[in-house]
């Protein structure tokens, strides 16, 4: 009897302590998120202000930049093409279902495809390719360099690691996301047309189809495409670099930090994409918010 009562009071006490700590935990989480965002913005500010100075672009920095562009942008082209082609086919399959269901025409399919591709899918796909191929590799590389003391070696020779390592990686990732989004868009349009033609959904020539798509191009498309590629790419790059550099001095931390960096970068891309959609459309689902 006595034991069960004391256990009851014990549980109540634990609950009270947990409840009393809940606001504290929420506050801590909010502060830590705010700190993370501030760190990301600081790193981006530093990177772009360094990139705007001609004196930063020394020969070794240009070499790092070109290597990173080759790895992230050029080598990522095939992946962007493959993924873009696959998504183009998936889109046209969905369009075919709608054509069958409600008797849509090519004139109605083309703008739908175009908007889905340019405003949402291509920027997202490019970010996924870049994070998967390069973002995680960058955080692993920087973490390993930090653990091995290579950052100290640079620092000791009067070479700023921010200028020589972070800035070229961030700028090349942003540039690569933009270029790969363009490539993914092209792949989606081509395979979308080919798939649609094969499925009988699209019955016009390629140039007529392209003309229908381009005729629907407006400034709102640019308003989606540019920030969704540039901003999401910049955030993903900054997160990968920050997480890589935040590793403590043991090599066993490197894989853990890399996987966290990848997850965080992906989360950031989806969140930014959602926030931009809300800001630009001014609505969440059917609800007007702005």
């Amino acid at each position, binding site marked *: 009897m006595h034991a069960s009562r004391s256990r009851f009071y014990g549980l109540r006490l634990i609950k009270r302590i947990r409840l009393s700590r809940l606001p504290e935990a929420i506050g801590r989480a909010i502060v830590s998120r705010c700190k993370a965002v501030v760190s990301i913005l600081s790193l981006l500010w530093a990177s772009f202000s360094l990139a705007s100075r001609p004196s930063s672009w*020394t*020969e*070794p920095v240009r070499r790092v930049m070109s290597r990173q562009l080759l790895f992230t942008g050029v080598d990522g082209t095939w992946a962007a093409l493959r993924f873009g082609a696959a998504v183009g086919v998936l889109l046209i399959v969905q369009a075919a279902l709608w054509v069958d269901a409600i008797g849509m025409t090519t004139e109605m399919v083309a703008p739908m495809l175009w908007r889905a591709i340019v405003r949402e899918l291509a920027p997202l796909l490019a970010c996924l390719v870049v994070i998967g191929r390069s973002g995680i590799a960058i955080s692993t590389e920087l973490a390993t*360099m930090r653990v*091995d*003391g290579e950052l100290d*070696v640079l620092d*000791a*020779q*009067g070479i700023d690691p921010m200028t020589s390592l972070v800035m070229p990686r961030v700028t090349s990732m942003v540039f690569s996301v933009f270029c790969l989004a363009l490539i993914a868009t092209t792949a989606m349009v081509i395979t979308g047309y080919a798939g649609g033609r094969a499925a009988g959904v699209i019955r016009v020539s390629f140039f007529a189809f392209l003309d229908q798509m381009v005729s629907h191009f407006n400034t709102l498309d640019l308003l989606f495409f540019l920030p969704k590629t540039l901003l999401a790419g910049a955030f993903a790059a900054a997160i990968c670099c920050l997480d890589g550099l935040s590793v403590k001095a043991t090599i066993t931390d490197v894989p853990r930090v890399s996987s966290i960096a990848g997850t965080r970068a992906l989360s950031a891309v989806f969140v930014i994409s959602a926030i931009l959609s809300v800001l630009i459309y001014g609505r969440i689902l059917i609800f007007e918010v702005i």
Partner: protein
Amino acid sequence: MLTPDWQKDVINESCVLRLQAVYQRPEYESSLKVNDVSFALNAGEVLTVQVDPSTRTRSFASLVQGIINPDAGDLLFLKQRWSGSDYERHFFLRSLIGRVFEGQAWIESLNVDENVTLAARHHGRSIEDIKVSVQDWLDRLGLERLINRRPAFVAPAILQVHQWIRAFLSQPKLVILERPMQFLSENWFGKLLKSIEWIASRGTAVLWLDSRPNLDQVDWRIPYHHVVAQDGRFEIASEVNGGSDE
């Protein structure tokens, strides 16, 4: 772009390094202890510091370079403090220091030759000028050419000699040598001494941290000081201010 006044001042400063009552909490148990250390090192002088064989010198060298801040005391390089957040000044000052590292010394993603010339290229020396300086040092050390393979695939002894070249390449104001004979046979000792005397005669100050037993018996022809590091203090063992010939 105008050169800042401090940048003009450091070029002709004769006192290269000055430590005043510096205290540094050891980073690791084996790190070189620094407790109330004071010394001054002028241009063209050599300071050899005898350390215990089990002592790691890396954190002390980083302290001298301003990568780690002292917990107490004052540390001046060319009359400049490492404090403050004007990082451009810090990086400029560090570009005037050559260093042979103990432990990790290379950027593993670059070839050894790229590593050797990295700082010189980054700080704006022309490729032709760098090639001439590299060839001078290769001739002086009896090497054919720089290795163009990743550091992971090169023997430690060869890497160590390449570290010397990197440290001496840009005629720095200060050279920090952390166990420069590590991995090398005694045949190289004479070449190292000649190299040090050559750069010191051109105004470079040399801080040599080592546990070699015969460090105090070197017959220098340049001003030198020899101190023994014991329990965090640097005890003067011998010094010659005008060179052993005088």
